[in-house]
């Protein structure tokens, strides 16, 4: 029991790091495309770790499947929305940031 709790705590801490990184990127990156990149990648991973942590804690396989489904749906939706935002930005003539 203690071991699963330890793993959960570890995973949650890890996810926290990813979320922090993603949020930092969202706030600090220079243009829209970079921000999208930071947000989707880091946050999806962070959410994955949270889901994993919850899976370890759950006591029935139905809950595990549901959690997995949630993560997959968020991945798909997040990717599509990021794509749509980037596409619209490109159509509106936003130039990618150059150093």
């Amino acid at each position: 029991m203690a071991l699963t709790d330890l793993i959960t705590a570890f995973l949650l801490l890890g996810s926290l790091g990813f979320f922090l990184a993603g949020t930092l990127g969202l706030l600090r990156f220079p243009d829209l495309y970079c921000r999208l990149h930071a947000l989707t990648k880091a946050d999806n991973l962070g959410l994955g770790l949270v889901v994993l942590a919850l899976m370890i804690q759950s006591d029935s396989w139905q809950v595990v499947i549901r959690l997995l489904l949630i993560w997959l749906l968020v991945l798909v939706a997040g990717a599509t929305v990021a794509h749509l935002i980037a596409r619209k930005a490109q159509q509106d003539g936003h130039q990618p940031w150059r150093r």
Partner: protein
Amino acid sequence: MELALIFDLILLITLIALAWLLLASSDIFRAVVLFIAFGLLLALAWVRLGAPDVALAEAAIGAGITGALLLVGLGRLGSAEHYRGTRTRLTFLQRLSAPVLIGVMIPSISLILLLELSLHASATPGQQGLVNVLLDVSGTNHGVTAVLMNFRAWDTLLEKGVLLLALISIWSLDQARPLFRQNDISPQLTGLARLLLPIMIIVAGFVLWQGDHAPGGAFQSGAILSAGILLAILVGYTLPTRRQGLSLRLLLAVGFSVFLLVAAATLLSSDYLLKYPDSLAGSLILLLELVATASIAALLAAAVVGGHPPDDLSKPVDRSSAVNGGQT
């Protein structure tokens, strides 16, 4: 316990701060986005208060559908504050009433209420016990569903009426316009819709079925379905013209009319409004929830589209003035 209290405090402070920020923000698009975030956090607050049904409804209806409505409205409205015409001078009374109301009335009322509530110790046990006792004869196994569909079904009937009435009002105001430019559909979105639509239908059915014994039910399920319909509209599906007449109206009205019919039938047979026969209560509630879900889904989606379908009775309107609804 202490930890939970800290969580509550953080949640509530965030909610109040969000409400203040979104109402004070100078950019309305930003305000709408913050409002959606506010709705999601509010759903969390409902969970903390032990009201998961309300949380589901808030996430689906409060944040989801209201957010879609606001974004579409903003796309059509524009965010600048325009005046036209001369502004006449305010009378003395009007001049006086605003600061009095805002500066004195609101703070004092809130303060009195807050002070009184802190003294108020909740002595009543609520109606939970009564609901639990009567749950066996209600035809469902979930307290909230029993209250909605049986104990206070008259409220629910009238509320279905309000929904239908809202749609009739919307149709009386405007003709439907496309939500977006037709040539602008991303293949990515189409793919997502193909993937999500079946899942959404399954989830809606699941939420509806779950309402019998756990949080869920017609509203939440209908809201999910209507999100599916909106997604389908976004990737370019349209209702065939021959289905935009009576059959669409039937779909929109079926939830309310079946409820009315059940009310009339129970009134005829038992002299009491909406007193379901004991043996039929379960199946009647199931029937009512099924048709309600279908109607709610159609009504909410139609409300977002925002206007009556083009028909022979009304004048043709200029369709080139279509405004792009989706903003980024």
